[in-house]
């Protein structure tokens, strides 16, 4: 069929545009080859695909990205004030010169290219494994592309409590850069780690992260995606949680022509807990998509999704979230909230909050709302002498505070709050 052929051609063109690195160990080559075959079999998505009904994948399918102008930052880098171990990527390439020495107690950090050239490494059980499992029930071709071709990234293993966060900073220096970054993270039983990510990375970014959290482990994941207006990004996080482990993730997105953040969180051990949250503000040519699947595969787990989007000037916000409760995952507590706040007539909010439940002793709920700024609240604030603009900003910040409150460390939340305030101030 013509349609299937077109999809495959698209996949082949993407693979051709991103040659796989050479000189890797056998197991890595096998994983790459399998991912290549997966991608060719599934092909690239088409706008009519159910999974892409709200987001046009065209910008991600092009073999080379559209140019994206650079933004000269007028403020300190995000998380710049905190004591952290910083690793820097420039247009998707790791920069040892700009990075801190990768040494910290309770932590082993290695470069992806070094790890994939090693014959024996624990990463063998992770690289491409969670991604390939995550191709069901829906295909995620850009994650397969990442496994097949991504040459840079870090491999992090937390072996105990870590004294300070690891911060991955992505700089954007070339208007036409096309970055594929792959990280592997393993949190050993009882260990804990805070992982930060910030920056626009490239004109087009394809970032994929596979995360395994062992029993009683904990990962805090805080992201601030860069403010460059024309950048495009697709990110995937595949997270598997063991017994009693904790995963807390928050993503702040400001600007960007296209952002699609896919997360697949599997709760595989009893008593595990996953909180996935996001806030975004967009103006004009801004398309932001959160696609989240939380799978409860063990009894007594808890999950929470909180996503809020503020949209203006024709911006589009998309939320596709799903809680899947497998038959034996009794005593599940699942919660999901998606809300859109539209500041003018032109914006749109599109949501598909799903529940699929195959166990009976569960408590699952979701809520989704969309609307404009509450006129009554605005009236109240203006009647107290607050200017209308300011009142509106206050209400917007209050609206976005719920996902921000999901960040465990209040200092990081506060940093992001001030950035939101500045974003609003710039748009008076």
């Amino acid at each position, binding site marked *: 069929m013509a349609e299937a052929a077109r999809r495959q051609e698209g996949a082949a063109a993407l693979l051709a545009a991103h040659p796989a690195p050479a000189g890797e160990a056998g197991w890595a080559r096998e994983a790459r080859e399998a991912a290549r075959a997966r991608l060719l079999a599934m092909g690239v998505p088409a706008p009519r695909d*159910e999974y892409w009904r709200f987001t046009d994948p065209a910008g991600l399918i092009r073999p080379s990205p559209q140019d994206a102008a650079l933004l000269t930052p007028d403020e300190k880098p995000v998380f710049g004030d905190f004591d952290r171990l910083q690793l820097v990527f420039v247009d998707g390439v790791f920069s040892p010169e700009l990075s801190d020495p990768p040494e910290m107690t309770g932590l082993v950090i290695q470069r992806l290219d070094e790890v994939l050239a090693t014959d024996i490494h624990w990463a063998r059980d992770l690289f491409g494994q969670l991604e390939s499992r995550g191709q069901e029930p829906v295909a995620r071709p850009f994650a397969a592309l990442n496994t097949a071709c991504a040459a840079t990234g870090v491999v992090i293993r937390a072996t105990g409590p870590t004294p300070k966060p690891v911060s991955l900073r992505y700089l954007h220096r070339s208007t036409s850069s096309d970055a594929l970054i792959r990280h592997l993270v393993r949190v050993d039983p009882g260990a804990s780690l805070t992982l930060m990510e910030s920056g626009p990375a490239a004109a087009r970014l394809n970032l994929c992260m596979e995360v395994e959290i062992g029993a009683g482990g904990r990962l805090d994941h805080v992201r601030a995606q860069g403010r460059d207006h024309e950048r495009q990004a697709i990110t995937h996080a595949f997270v598997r949680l063991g017994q009693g482990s904790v995963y807390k993730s928050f993503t702040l997105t400001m600007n960007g022509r296209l952002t699609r953040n896919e997360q697949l969180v599997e709760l595989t051990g009893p008593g595990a807990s996953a909180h996935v949250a996001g806030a975004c503000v967009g103006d004009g040519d801004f398309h932001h998509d959160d696609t989240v699947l939380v799978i409860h595969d063990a009894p007594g787990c808890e999950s929470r999704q909180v996503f809020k989007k503020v949209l203006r000037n024709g911006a589009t916000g998309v939320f596709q979230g799903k809680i899947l409760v497998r*038959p034996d995952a*009794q005593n599940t507590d699942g919660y999901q909230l998606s809300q*859109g706040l*539209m*500041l*003018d*007539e*032109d*914006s*749109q*909010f*599109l*949501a*598909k*909050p*799903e*529940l*699929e*439940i*195959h*166990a*009976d*002793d*569960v*408590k*699952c*709920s*979701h*809520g*989704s*709302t*969309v*609307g*404009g700024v509450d006129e009554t609240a605005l009236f109240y604030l203006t009647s107290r002498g607050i200017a209308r603009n300011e009142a509106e900003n206050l209400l917007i910040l209050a609206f976005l505070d719920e996902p921000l409150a999901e960040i465990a460390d209040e200092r990081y939340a506060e940093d992001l709050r001030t950035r939101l305030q500045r974003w609003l101030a710039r748009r008076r």
Partner: protein
Amino acid sequence: MTALDKATPTDALAREGVDQETVDAVRSVGARYKYGWHTEIETDYAPKGLNEEIIRLISARKEEPEWMLEWRLQAYRRWLTMKEPTWAMIKHPPIDFQDQYYYAQPKSFRKKPKSLDEVDPELLRTYEKLGIPLREQMILAGVEGAGEAPAEGRRVAVDAVFDSVSVGTTFREELARAGVIFCSISEALRDHPDLVRKYLGSVVPPTDNFYATLNSAVFSDGSFVYVPPGVRCPMELSTYFRINAENTGQFERTLIIADKGAYVSYLEGCTAPMRDTNQLHAAVVELVALEDAEIKYSTVQNWYPGDEEGRGGIYNFVTKRADCRGARSRVMWTQVETGSAITWKYPSCILRGEGSQGEFYSIAITNNCQQADTGTKMIHLGRNTRSRIVSKGISAGRAQNTYRGLVSIHPRAAGSRNHTQCDSLLIGDRCGAHTVPYIECRNNSSRVEHEATTSKVDEDQLFYCRSRGLDAEEAVALVVNGFCKEVLQALPMEFAVEAQKLVAISLEGSVG
């Protein structure tokens, strides 16, 4: 339903707190699918299978005008190019569309009876047995055995459809005096061709979807209602669908038009005999509401659901859509879905008129191996349009129950409002309950709210009921009825009583 079959209530006795009436009611609704018998009646079939000849034959039998045949054939040719939709959360073996009869009518209908007096008494007995009054009498419908009830009861005009033909329509003269046209669609094609031609396919076009297109090609009977401007229909209208013949699909087509300022309330019920094979039912219902008009459409769907092992049962693929064309028009869908092996049904409202309003109240109960994928679409096109969705899904045994809905607010539909509430209840650890809502809001003056919950039957509530002397099944029935109350209350009184009982019997065998 197994558990109760064994612990049968047929010899249940009145005891303290449970009066004889209740016992009789329970006995009458029976421990098994109550409408599973079939009528021995000689039936004329069109040859098995589907091709242009069959369509010509259906059209000829119904003495349809030429344009209607052409319409059907176009739909058929289109259907040949279409694929069965696979997106719903239902599983079934492939349907052999050639292994079906597309037309079946009782032999006695070779010559169409002129009035109910000429109808084969066997047929009339069938409807009597179903509790459907084909005699024009004052009755309190829905409450069985109430044919002799006092004359204060409400009256309901009935159109009865048996396999592929309409048996008869009651109260026609009285309705005609009010200007209301209520007849089978075949008669409407003969007597009011212009009205039919104007509206047929204007809400659900013949190209709409696989099953609607199939229906457009082969539809047999169904009801036609036209309520003229400013008329409030003097009584409830109702259609009762019965599949009797084996291996026969039923493809009914209903068209209801409420002209400016008119009001009509329409009820629909359906049953089928118990058979081991699956039977296909693919209906299309079109509602048109003009300015200030109001249509209430209520369904109690009780097709044969198949046995505990999932053998047999009706495949119910239905397209229902309302077009609120006029300003301030209003459509209310209420459905109680307890039957069918598979339910695939999304009654929708296109809210085109300014200030128009759509409502959807649904209870879907699945037990044993039943699968239901049902919900609604509310398409807001006009300014200040409003919609409300209340959906209650109950899943027991090994059943799968999915709510699938769309709320779409277009850029021009400023000031619109939607509230959606969908709750699922799980009884047993082998069933599934799923929610798949689509929310699309394209302006900022509108407000959309969606909430959904899934939980199991509350143990505390069950314990309380048990401590008051109710047995496990009664307790579940009571809790579930409470869970569904909002929807049950939206039903016309005629149906509410029956629906409550249905809720209870549909869940039999699901506890203990």
